[in-house]
């Protein structure tokens, strides 16, 4: 059974202007996205900057209110719930942020940050010691328990990200949105943090949605991946062998942009021409049509939907059979 179910999720940000501050337009950040995440699965979401992957993640855990569509947790719809009704789901669903420097309150010590969340959700029973629990958490994310008395500015970027992970884990969630958790870190630290997350996921049986712009990281980390372009999912595919399975021209272009770690393996480099269309007035047809080699007249007027093709792949493209 799927843990998370997303149906036709849409998020538009209004643009206000004019004398009376009326809504004059919208930014179409997430358009009509549907998918499911099975319990224990790790779903990757990739796409270039501004394609709406972070908005998707934040809307799913209701940091942002969806414009349309619904999100369900274990079959229970959580969109439209008020603050107190939402509380049990808040505990189940947590988020790890991209920027370790702005994701921690500079005025709170590590233990104060963790304590307020633990107290709010009454994570601990009557007999349990708060200090012991925090020490365990610190060890779990690879920090020394003594460090809990320090303030965020006394840590390095990688250590801060570990604290961010500890904060997400301290309420014992089942589902975690990891919003580009390693893209702000050094490559050497990236590997450490990724391995930590993988270990924790296996140890705690977490379900995860992993947002990234790096296909290689997603390939290593995830079971399945959604490829997003301008607010739409263009392809959904398993990560066993991305090079072989990719069907959508945009996915192929993303894969082609990855450097290959073999000097003898030379392939023709396909470089995408043009720019991403503006999300304020997205094109009527396929959003990728302007940059696509395969594009036909049909692509420019009719938007392809994400559907299962004859090959068994989930692709949103008229030209892929």
């Amino acid at each position, binding site marked *: 059974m799927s843990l998370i179910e997303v149906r036709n999720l849409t998020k538009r940000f209004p643009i206000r202007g004019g004398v009376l501050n009326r809504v004059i337009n919208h930014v179409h950040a997430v358009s009509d996205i549907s998918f499911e995440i099975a319990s224990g699965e790790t779903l990757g979401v990739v796409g270039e900057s501004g394609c709406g992957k972070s908005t998707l993640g934040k809307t799913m*855990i209701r940091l942002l209110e969806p414009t349309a569509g619904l999100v369900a947790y274990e079959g229970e719809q959580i969109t439209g719930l008020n603050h107190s009704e939402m509380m049990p789901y808040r505990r189940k669903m*947590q*988020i790890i*942020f*991209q920027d370790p420097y*702005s994701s*921690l309150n500079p005025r709170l010590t590590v233990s104060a940050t963790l304590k307020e969340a633990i107290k709010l959700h009454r994570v601990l029973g009557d007999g349990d010691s708060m200090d012991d629990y925090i020490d365990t958490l610190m060890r779990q994310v690879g920090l020394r328990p003594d460090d809990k008395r320090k303030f965020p500015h006394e840590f390095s970027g990688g250590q801060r990200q570990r604290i961010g992970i500890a*904060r997400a884990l301290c*309420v014992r969630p089942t589902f975690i949105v990891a919003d580009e958790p390693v893209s702000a870190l050094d490559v050497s630290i990236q590997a450490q943090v990724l391995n930590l997350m993988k270990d924790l996921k296996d140890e705690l049986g977490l379900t995860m949605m992993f947002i990234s712009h790096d296909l290689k990281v997603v390939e290593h980390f995830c079971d399945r991946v959604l490829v997003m372009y301008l607010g739409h999912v263009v392809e959904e595919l398993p990560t066993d062998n991305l090079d072989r399975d990719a069907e959508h021209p945009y996915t192929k272009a993303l894969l082609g942009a990855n450097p290959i770690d073999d000097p003898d393996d030379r392939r023709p480099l396909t470089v995408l021409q043009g720019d991403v269309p503006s999300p304020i007035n997205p094109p009527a047809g396929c959003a990728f049509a302007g940059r696509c080699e395969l594009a036909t007249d049909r692509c420019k007027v009719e938007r392809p939907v994400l559907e299962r093709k004859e090959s068994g792949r989930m692709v949103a493209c008229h030209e892929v059979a």
Partner: protein
Amino acid sequence: MIRRMARSRAWRKFTRNRTALVATGVIGLYAAIFLTIVGTQITDWAGVTNIGSRQGLQMRVLPPKWPGFLESAGIEQRYDAHDWQVSNLNRLFRKDLESMADPSGELAAVSLGERKLADKPIAELRALNEQLNEQFDAVGEVYDIYDEVNEEHHDLDDAIAKAKEGGDEEELAALRAQIEPLEQRRRDAESQLSTALDAVDEVYEELMPQPTGFGGVVYRFRTMFGSDVLGQSISGRAFYSIKIAFQVGLVVATISVLIGTLLGAVAGFYGGWIDSAVMWLISTLSSIPYLVLLAVLAFMFSGHQYFDNSAEYPELQLVKLYTAMGLTFWVGTARVIRGEVMKIKELEYVQAATAIGFGRFYIVLKHVIPNTFHIMFINFSLLFIGAIKSEVILSFLGLGVSGQPSWGTMISNSKDDLSNYFFWEVGAASFLMFVLVLAFNIVSDALQDAFDPKHV
């Protein structure tokens, strides 16, 4: 909290700034004086020092417009002062002191300025007073000569002016020859008069000695800057004004920063119609000049039982100042805080708090406002001096403090005498205000430098 502050980068940066540390010390000194005066008023210390007491401030410590240190009084002034002393003492000794029930009590109560009668038997005091009168009569004789010489000098000046006009060279030369001997006579008369006045001083010192010990320190302090038109101690009033200034500064800055932070944070965090309402309030209030608002309030409260210089609650007259400034000064703080909060609320730790499930009000209080402390701090020190300066201007205009000293009223009182080279009152008030405002400016500059992340 304090341990963290001591370790923080901003604090280290602040302590490296020597000037700022000195300025902080100066502010500390002012604060100590402020607390002493407040303490004097709420406890019984007034009986010991009378520095902070209202009676002490209104008491005549010296003859009027007596100059402060580094400058000695002129001959006429000394003559006038002794005239006042002698006539007062004569009035006392004309009484039949010996037949009184408690003559020593009567004598102990006598004081001219800060000075009291020497602790001697009545007969001896009476003899000293006789001596004082004799010496003063002698001064009177010498003073007549001095007057005459001055008269002659005036006449001579007039004659020379007339001769110059007529162009009579011979007469002019003759008149000019008279100048030198006349000048000599005047110098002689002056030194004679000065000696005679010294003799009076000597007797007076014996009759009414300068206080010693703690009283001496107080006496020296209270006569340090001389006296104003009414003979009141300028230093006493100038230092008392610190209390008024701090009181206005503290209350206004606290009110303004509290209102400004609260409204600014709410506007910045919630946005929407709340933001529009607060911004409307800000632009409306900042278009009202606080001087006009204060004038309205002053007229509203004038003649009020409690709010207009009442004898029972003299502090309540400042309420109109607090109201006018508190209502208008918070807008600057609110604007800055609103901008900062709009920045902070987009940061990921605020989103993380939402994801954990905290309510918005809790997030504002716990995660947003504490991160604007540095702005509150800087704004407090800026508003503090702003309020003090406004209080001085308003008191100068007669809209602010009345019935008790303030730097503004002191400057206002002495402005007419400034052309007579009487600068002590303006000087003392301006100097104390200048040092305080300068110190605060230095400290708030240093705070801004220390907290500004752009200058690491």
